[in-house]
């Protein structure tokens, strides 16, 4: 059952008012403007046992994503498509407010929203991830480990997952007498586009980007858009408050604009140049 009770950082009313007062002057506690992201650092290939991996630092938020390519059986309704499964776990080392145990609703939402961005953008051409149609396909597992929490997990996780997928290398496989045989040849995943998630946070009447944990404790709601090829491909609102229709469109315009810069960063790191084509 979903419960509004959260073990989370408590920000008292005085501090809350101070933060909102700063917002009204266009400032933030760490010196940023309302629309500024913290320093973003993306490293790929950080985990050598994975087929692909990425470590993303967004300010003090640190997220590691690892890709494992395995063999699976396709779903009966999509015999000609590989499988993609995104999982996320926020570790007890990452935050004082996390305890060990199965993923809670926040982790499940995190994984599902990031999954939606990757899936709906058709980032990986799943039709190419087939070993033998209807029998064996590749299943791509992307698992996310959140190492340190300081806000904006949705965006940081999305960048880590996308970078890990875009830099993954795996051994092709083939079926010989119903047995899966690994070939020597290494391949990259068939990447068609780079989806970018941009979250707008709302506190009081202010819209801002990339909130820290303290700012998230003050925020009323958040709105995430995944952008690919200059279009929206996924969205998710979260939090206890609402957005006015104008704020929704403003958040979308911001996402469309900001995503270009982050897409360029990811493309640079993974070494995939932008093509003129769309999926």
């Amino acid at each position, binding site marked *: 059952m979903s419960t509004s009770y959260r073990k989370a950082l408590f920000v008292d009313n005085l501090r809350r008012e101070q933060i909102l007062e700063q917002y009204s002057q266009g400032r933030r506690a760490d010196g940023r403007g309302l629309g500024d992201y913290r320093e973003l650092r993306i490293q790929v290939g950080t985990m050598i046992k994975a087929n692909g991996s990425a470590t993303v630092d967004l300010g003090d938020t640190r997220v590691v994503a690892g890709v494992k390519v395995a063999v699976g059986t396709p779903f009966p309704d999509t015999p000609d498509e590989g499988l993609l499964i995104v999982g996320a776990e926020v570790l007890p080392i990452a935050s004082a407010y996390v305890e060990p145990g199965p993923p809670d609703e926040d982790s499940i939402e995190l994984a599902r929203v990031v999954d939606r961005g990757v899936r709906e953008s058709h980032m990986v051409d799943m039709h190419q991830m087939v070993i033998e149609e209807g029998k064996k396909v590749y299943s791509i597992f992307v698992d996310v480990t959140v190492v340190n929490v300081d806000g904006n997990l949705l965006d940081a996780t999305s960048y880590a997952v996308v970078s890990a997928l875009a830099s993954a290398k795996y051994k092709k496989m083939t079926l010989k007498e119903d047995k899966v045989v690994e070939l020597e040849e290494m391949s990259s995943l068939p990447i068609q586009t780079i989806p970018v998630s941009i979250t707008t946070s709302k506190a009081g009447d202010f819209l801002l980007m990339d909130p820290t944990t303290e700012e998230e404790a003050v925020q009323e709601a958040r709105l995430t858009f995944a952008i690919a090829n200059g279009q929206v*491909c996924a*969205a998710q*609102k*979260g939090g206890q408050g609402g957005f006015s229709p104008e704020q929704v469109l403003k958040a979308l315009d911001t996402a469309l604009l900001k995503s270009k810069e982050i897409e360029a960063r990811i493309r640079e790191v993974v070494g995939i140049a932008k093509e003129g084509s769309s999926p």
Partner: protein
Amino acid sequence: MNLIDENGLRIDGRKLDELRPVKIEVGVLKNADGSAYIEWGKNKIFAAVRGPKECHPKHIAMADRAVLKCRYHMAPFSVPDRKAPQPSRREIELSKVIREALTPALILEEYPRTAIEIYVEVLTSDGGSRAASITAAAAALADAGITMRDLVVAVAAGKAQDHLILDLCDEEDKEGQVDLPVAYMPNLDQVTLLQMDGFMTRDEFEQAFNMAKEACKTVYKIQREAVISKYFGDSMPKNKGA
């Protein structure tokens, strides 16, 4: 599958911007403090509210407000393939987004140290079940007498065969290009749930979003009448609100 025919009619004969029939009844469950039953197209959904009541476990009680709990659950026979009765990841996420869609309407500070529980049981699912669930749950909350700022209504818009469409049915949800559920408080002009999957340009998004928002105002009238008619029957006051 052909979702839209040459006359611009959809698989169930509707026009592109036409809602399915919506029927809401309030106060249908004797053992709940508030309840509602909704039939929206082929969706059949019960929503029950229990509380404000003692909060369990006690340590999650909040000193300044009520804790809101929500469970969205689908019956094993609600979909073509039997759904395992234990909560799926989808149901866990939906429980959360439905709770967050309803929270902005509630004045939880009125009920410190208590819990308010919302149970949504989907008996038949037919596309747009989260929208129908939110609409029913808001009516059930009003029926329970919980202080509210506004009702919450939800409708999905989307895209199929490059046409923007309203209120997706099952086939359109599965075979179509985009699903965009929106929950909205009509009097406060606030969007409390927004999800989306599939590709749309910015202008398509704005159009579909506005389409869903305007449809929310239509469903709001049905929802409001359902709540009022439980108490006033046929002699209900007309023409208030949006």
